[in-house]
């Protein structure tokens, strides 16, 4: 299965606009699975309208200490790099909010006094869109800090079984996975991009758009993922994005002009190809170029 990730660096450049329209045209040619990986601000469902039938709590496996077996030796606190577990006299304190769920304390407890239970930090909602796109989104609970564990679970999701690792049959098929990434250029973006076959970078032709495009292009480069660019709101700003892409050999695969009717349609919750069907051809060509580029 080919995996395409849609990222941007700067927020609000049109990641979800591009991802949802790409998914719609892709669904006309084969099986599509859509993962909304912006767990802090997931918006793709507002455009693709999946019926979200399944909801699974996800989070971090945090330690629980069996007071009967514990000898208060302090090994758990020694190995924890995140100060999430502390031994004070005859008491072991666990701070769930600091725990990364790495399991180090569990592995290294000499008495095997530590078991793990799920501290829920979010939910994975899944279902199917009217076009038959298999859809899943991660939603982080308000007040939580770490989205990456939710993302890891989300990437494991498959429509068939709900939570088992991807089956070999699905991987072997011509199916397509589209991941809508969060903004920024830190760990959640890296986790979203990791393992993808292609990174489609959506930007706008402004100094902010270019500055943040450089950040996310650097991540794609470090991860060894081939990338291409979509320039949204073409016509505003300046020509610096185009010049930079040419210098770097990054292909510009699609330009979407700044048009008020597009902004209005997307504001109301329409996808771009539904609102302006003229763009259908552009997205079909975009998809063909990505698929051909990755599987020459």
């Amino acid at each position: 299965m080919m995996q395409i990730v849609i990222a941007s660096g700067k927020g609000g450049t049109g990641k979800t606009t591009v991802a949802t329209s790409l998914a719609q045209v892709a669904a006309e040619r084969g099986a599509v699975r859509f993962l909304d990986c912006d767990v802090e601000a997931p918006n793709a469902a507002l455009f693709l309208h999946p019926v979200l039938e399944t909801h699974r709590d996800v989070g971090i496996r945090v330690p629980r200490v069996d007071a009967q077996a514990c000898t208060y030796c302090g090994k758990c606190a020694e190995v924890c790099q995140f100060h999430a577990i502390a031994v004070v006299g005859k008491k072991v304190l666990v701070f769930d909010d600091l725990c990364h769920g790495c399991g180090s304390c569990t592995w290294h407890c000499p008495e095997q006094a530590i078991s793990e239970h799920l501290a829920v930090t979010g939910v994975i909602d899944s279902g199917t869109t009217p076009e038959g796109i298999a859809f899943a989104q991660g939603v982080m609970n308000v007040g939580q800090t770490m989205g990456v564990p939710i993302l890891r679970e989300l990437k494991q999701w498959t429509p068939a079984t709900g939570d088992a690792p991807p089956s070999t049959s699905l991987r072997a098929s011509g199916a397509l996975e589209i991941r809508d990434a969060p903004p920024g250029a830190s760990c959640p973006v890296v986790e979203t991009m990791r393992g993808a076959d292609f990174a489609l970078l959506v930007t706008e032709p402004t100094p902010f758009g270019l500055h943040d495009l450089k950040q996310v292009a650097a991540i794609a480069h470090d991860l060894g993922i081939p990338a291409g660019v979509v320039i949204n709101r073409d016509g505003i700003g300046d020509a610096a994005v185009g010049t930079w892409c040419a210098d770097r050999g990054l292909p510009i695969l699609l330009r979407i002009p700044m048009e008020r009717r597009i902004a209005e349609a997307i504001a109301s919750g329409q996808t771009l190809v539904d609102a302006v069907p003229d763009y259908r051809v552009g997205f079909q060509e975009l998809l063909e170029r990505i698929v051909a580029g990755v599987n020459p």
Partner: protein
Amino acid sequence: MKQLVILSGKGGTGKTSVTAAFAHLASQGPLADRILLADADVDAANLELVLQPRRLDTQPFRGGQVAVINEDTCVHCGDCESVCRFDAIIETDGRWTIDPIACDGCAACVYQCPTDSIAMQEQTVGECARSDSRYGPLHHAHLSPGQENSGKLVTQVRQRARQQALDEQRQVVIVDGPPGIGCPVIAAVSGADLALLVTEPTVSGIHDLRRALQTVQHFGVPALVCINKADVYPAGAREIEADCAAQGIPTVGRIPFDLTVASAMVAGEAVTLYRPDAPASLALSALWARVLPFLLEAPA
């Protein structure tokens, strides 16, 4: 001293353009020479593109650690791989290496290795800077692409900004926040005196504003809302105002869709300076006039 943080939930709603306009407008009024700026969006730090500051000092930011295998003493047993939950330890032809991008820094492998061949190495993952801008001191930072601990870096930026504001008796710190509701947002909002949420009347903007407001309220920070590009989808703008009214949150401004904002960004200037009579500039001036009293009032 009061700290105003600009947030949004959804990215790209205009946080930085509003912050830059506020910095310019503040320099014209009772807060002239009494403000300080902080850019808390450390993985997409754009405020300096508008303020064009002069950098005074830069310090490396040491984030987390990553594990490194000593090839000379490794006996290729693979025990490390068995305890790694982050798929960071990769075996190729009987040799193990650690992917520093995937490594979470938990050190489980360090303690598991029977030959003590793995050590943790501190990483320099960004920089923290102090600058002078035309509207006041600026504290900002850059996280290297793909790194962790953006919340820790945001906290560092805010602490340094706060300290300088206290030292120089500056009255207001304006913090340009990151998008989302996660770790860097929590680091940007906790302990702030006031949050201004810049939203847009789109289905995405409305959805993400609700989550951002919940986050701000979770940390007990009073919130104001302003609607950018308010005329693009008037029904959405009315929904936001009704939503906010029901929660007792003041909607303090409506900024019209105006391409002058993008032109100002290209020119590297606050839109209120670039073209003071543009529709967006007039709306931003009105917005600042409504926010200012919240910053001048004595703490309750």
